[in-house]
């Protein structure tokens, strides 16, 4: 499927929401294409998010009340910006904590020596 295309997509698929929330937490507001470009830039092209994965995730987060939208006219067209709601900010903290714990656990499993240091 056309969700992600990269070295091992399955490992990253479950983190899409966390990535979106983290990026929105760092910037005040972002639009869809900007998010895809930011991810590409930060990972030096290693990770690419397709629109088929990004927009359904954004709309789901919006429906859950974690994001709010703002539409502005930019470059001859309308642009939909997303920003975190108060509930979204809380969810970002929780999701990041969850991800860090996951990474720590994986570290213990994959490289026990390194995790003891």
């Amino acid at each position: 499927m056309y969700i992600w295309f990269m070295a091992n997509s399955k490992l990253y698929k479950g983190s899409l929401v966390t990535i979106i929330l983290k990026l929105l937490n760092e910037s005040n507001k972002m639009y869809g294409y900007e998010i895809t470009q930011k991810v590409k830039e930060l990972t030096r092209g290693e990770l690419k998010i397709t629109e088929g994965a990004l927009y359904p995730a954004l709309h789901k987060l919006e429906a859950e009340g974690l994001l709010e939208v703002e539409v502005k006219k930019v470059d001859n067209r309308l642009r939909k910006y997303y920003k975190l709601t108060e509930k979204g900010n809380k969810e970002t903290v929780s999701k990041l904590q969850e991800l860090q714990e996951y990474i720590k656990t994986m570290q213990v499993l994959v490289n026990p020596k390194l995790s003891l240091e």
Partner: protein
Amino acid sequence: MVRLEREDIGFIENYLENSDIFYADIRLEMTDHVASEIEQLMSSENTEFYETFKSYMVNNKTVLLENNKQFIRAADTSILKRLYFELIKRPTLLVFCALLFMSYKWLLTIDVENLKDYMVMIPIISITPFLIVYVCSLKIFKIPRFSGVERLGLLYLMSFQVFNLLSLFTRIYVKSEHNFYIVALLIAIIVTFSLLIIKITFKIINQYRNDYKFMKSL
């Protein structure tokens, strides 16, 4: 960086509309995404608009159409969630109890035989208020085809079926004044639902008017 002209943006939007992406909210987002991608490609590959657009669509049209379907599903989920959250609020329960009491008192003043005739009309009468609200809002605010607004139709249809079923079921029980509490319950359920649906309709329309105030028709 290349910037697309107004005509190019219009071309993309028309293409998406002709590809069955009817809803204005999803189309404007897709238009912006496609336009941004094409601008990027035109700058990096030094190509013309039509050639870049054609090549982009050959590779991405399926994804865009799938995205449209997922967006519609998200809109339906959002409406049903709103209904659920409204249903579990305390004021809803209070309104329901008040309606139940008032309906029962009113039914005691009515003849049983006449009541059966009235009940046939309950489903039609029950959906009329929110259809009036919906049509009037669209006419007054001239809202474009937004997914949230159009998908309310699904909620109306579901409500009509539920009301009809409840009405049919209740008619079997109306044999004497002793069974009036069942009819009162039906009336209370239908009116509470209708009020909630009207409230959700207003909320959704106002949200679109607020979020999309840059659109000409708003």
